[in-house]
């Protein structure tokens, strides 16, 4: 499957042959003043049948944060998706995006002394079915570095031609103006190919990438999407993060590397990717079902309230097998304190009023195993364990900012960055009955929520730097003495040997959280009521998964759980 014009005749790499990275590839001159980065996710469904699967493609304008400010980039997203699905059955797919940087953006990278670039990409896909919302985060890996031309040159860069995923038929037109097709082994060339209208021209006059534009390829499967009921399932592109590995002319990593570009769809862009019909038991398609991919001028998420509500449960998003939804951030444990441990945590949070689930980014928690004691109680020996914890995101007591898209008041597509800041020490108290290996762990953590970088219906809304809850998020505390609406209470149950949560092994923790009213929102107008009415309230479900900790303070840490530089080996996957 061609990745770019002019590369269409290039044979695909052998099945299973992942393109080899070469840091020493000499940058090739380009004819175009553009870089086209193709993020190939599509066509990775070998043997796709024309009558059940099609390749969809849509071009979406994004804005990405570069060192000197945001710049527009054009993104083509492609996905091999089934025409229809069934309630309760997971939908797996590949998908694709082609990101075209304007010259100004390329100059930003050149200013970092980058002569070539590779990296990874993460695309947040908003999934909706009726009133149910969820987010799927796709992670793709780059193949070969792409040269960054020092200046515009007429020569193509054929060496950066197409690469395919292992055993897959992969392909995408690169950038605007190219037709997306399916070709290549295992994929019916006659399968439906849909190119969304309006994809032919990137921003900027005459900016369309030429046939020889080099392409940087990223690949990876989408998380599995399982509809809980019937009704149209819509996929909408959201935030895109590019972790660019930059290399200097001599192939050495440029600094800083990776360089992360955070990108969001531009205001007014149709970010719809596809609609997948989930018919009822009688096979009939519910109203609004459409086998078409993205619908021009119509945000499928925005249209959702008008659709018939799904007949069934919530959406479920699960990461692809054997793959993390995102790379693990740095999480180096303390080696000075003998009782220091460090663990990753991730999960999902539901905002009740928004009927949406968003992934809690993988975060790092520094732990201190404060005390353990064995106590004889009527039912046997109990282990009482007390520990404390601090969130650690780049040295700050916060969870990594999470970009979330949801519907305010059920109809306004709202995208915001959520930041949870830890206000005081986290405590972890366990009471385990040794004879049965059962017990309960209670985690108390005071967290305050801040929102920023808000866009409503694609229009930026300046909420100011201090739009946050008036106090900590809180839960009902099982200990009346500790009640006081001061902290979130997560509980983890150990049901038997190896079954359930323990601080020392990890597992699932859950909480029901009340979000207090907002304060400080808005610059020119008081936006507190908007967020208070649409977000604040009780009954928000939080499900966290903690990985097994690394005892970083142990002079001889267990290599099963600690990397050599005292980071956790175990990276948990979020569960719903």
């Amino acid at each position, binding site marked *: 499957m061609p990745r770019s014009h002019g590369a269409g005749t290039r044979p695909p790499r052998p099945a299973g042959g992942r393109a080899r990275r070469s840091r020493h590839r000499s940058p090739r001159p380009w004819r175009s003043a553009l870089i086209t980065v193709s993020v190939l996710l599509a066509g990775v469904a070998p043997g796709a049948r024309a009558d059940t699967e099609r390749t969809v493609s849509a071009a979406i304008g994004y804005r990405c944060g570069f060192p000197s400010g945001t710049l527009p980039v054009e993104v083509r997203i492609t996905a091999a998706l089934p025409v229809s699905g069934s309630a309760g059955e997971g939908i797996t797919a590949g998908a694709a995006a082609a990101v075209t940087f304007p010259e100004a953006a390329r100059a930003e990278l050149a200013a970092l002394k980058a002569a070539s670039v590779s990296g990874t990409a993460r695309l947040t896909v908003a999934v909706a079915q009726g009133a149910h919302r969820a987010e799927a985060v796709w992670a793709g890996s780059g193949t070969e570095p792409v040269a960054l031309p020092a200046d515009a040159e007429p020569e193509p860069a054929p060496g950066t031609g197409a690469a395919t995923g292992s055993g897959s038929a992969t392909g995408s037109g690169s950038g605007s103006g190219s037709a997306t097709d399916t070709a290549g082994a295992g994929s019916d060339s006659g399968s439906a190919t849909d190119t969304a209208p309006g994809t032919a021209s990137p921003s900027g006059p005459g900016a369309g990438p030429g046939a020889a534009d080099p392409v940087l390829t990223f690949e990876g499967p989408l998380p599995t999407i399982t509809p809980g009921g019937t009704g149209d399932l819509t996929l909408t592109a959201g935030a895109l993060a590019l972790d660019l590995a930059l290399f200097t002319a001599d192939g050495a990593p440029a600094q800083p590397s990776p360089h992360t570009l955070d990108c969001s769809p531009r205001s007014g862009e149709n970010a719809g990717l596809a609609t997948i019909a989930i018919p009822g038991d009688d096979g009939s398609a519910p109203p609004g079902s459409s086998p078409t991919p993205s619908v021009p001028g119509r945000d499928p998420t925005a249209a959702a309230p008008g659709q018939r509500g799904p007949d069934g449960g919530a959406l479920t998003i699960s990461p692809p097998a054997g793959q993390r939804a995102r790379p693990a951030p740095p999480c180096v444990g303390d080696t000075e304190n*003998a*009782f*220091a*441990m460090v663990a990753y945590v991730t999960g999902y949070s539901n905002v009740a009023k928004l009927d949406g689930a968003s992934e809690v980014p993988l975060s790092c928690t520094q732990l201190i*195993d404060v*005390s*353990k*004691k*064995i106590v004889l109680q009527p039912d046997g*020996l109990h*282990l009482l*364990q007390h520990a404390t914890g601090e969130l650690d995101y780049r040295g700050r007591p916060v969870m990594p900012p999470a970009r979330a898209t949801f519907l305010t008041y059920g109809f306004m597509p709202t995208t915001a960055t959520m930041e949870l800041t830890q206000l005081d020490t986290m405590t972890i108290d366990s009471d*385990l009955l*040794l004879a049965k*290996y059962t017990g309960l762990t209670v985690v108390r953590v005071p967290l305050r929520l801040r929102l920023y970088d808000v866009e409503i219906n694609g229009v930026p809304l300046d909420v100011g730097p201090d739009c946050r809850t008036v106090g900590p998020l809180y839960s009902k505390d099982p200990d009346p003495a500790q009640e006081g609406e001061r902290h979130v209470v997560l509980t983890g149950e150990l049901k038997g*040997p*190896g079954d359930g949560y*323990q601080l*020392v*092994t990890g597992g699932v923790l859950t909480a029901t959280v009340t979000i207090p009213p907002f304060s400080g929102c808005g610059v020119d107008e008081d936006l507190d009521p908007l967020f208070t009415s649409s977000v604040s309230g009780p009954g928000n479900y939080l499900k966290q998964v903690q990985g*097994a*900790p690394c*005892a970083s*303070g*142990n*002079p*001889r*840490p*267990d290599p*099963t*759980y600690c990397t050599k530089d005292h980071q956790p080996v175990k990276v948990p996957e979020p569960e719903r």
Partner: protein
Amino acid sequence: MRNPLAKAALTATAAAAALALAGAPALAAPTVWTVGPNSPQTFSALSTNTVLNLNGIPLTCPTATAGGTMFSATGNPGHIANISSAAFGSAANPCTSPVGPVQPIADTTPPWQLKGTAYNATTGTTTGFISGINASLTVLTCTFDVVGEVNATYRNSTGVLTVSNNATRQLTVANASAGCAGIAANGDHPTFNASYRVSTPAGGSGRPTVVGTP
């Protein structure tokens, strides 16, 4: 011994032991130990119920293995086997505890020694002990060594070697790291219990025999 109470107690214990031996002719101390079917012969052993209990905290290994050489011997105690390899847990079935994952590493250089002290001809059972035990354990924040001895019983009819502790043959914690507070302290005596099924030659299906004669 400066402590008269302790001296008295020791004397009494020795007297009781002498009486017990006198009253149990079937357990007359053997001095000739015959290992079969061959001597020397290699052996391997597998346990699925190894538990080290430390101050009430069980450190459990779903699987444990040992191996070495058995040989006929004379004397009492009779040195009838060297245990030159021992492992606890595996990647698929790691050792666990309520206070965290357990990573034991056995130090079998020099080899641990299995020694016979008594033999019951009626049941074909050898009793004795394993000496020279030395292992390092990491339990999350805590790393410590256990050194010492355990009691051992081997029954010819089953091929099962059972090990345990008492006040005489015991293990002792040493080199406990600072992160062991609440788990282990130097001088603690953990109990060790396990049943190993023994095969000879190593990895084979034969069942070794041990016979002690006066």
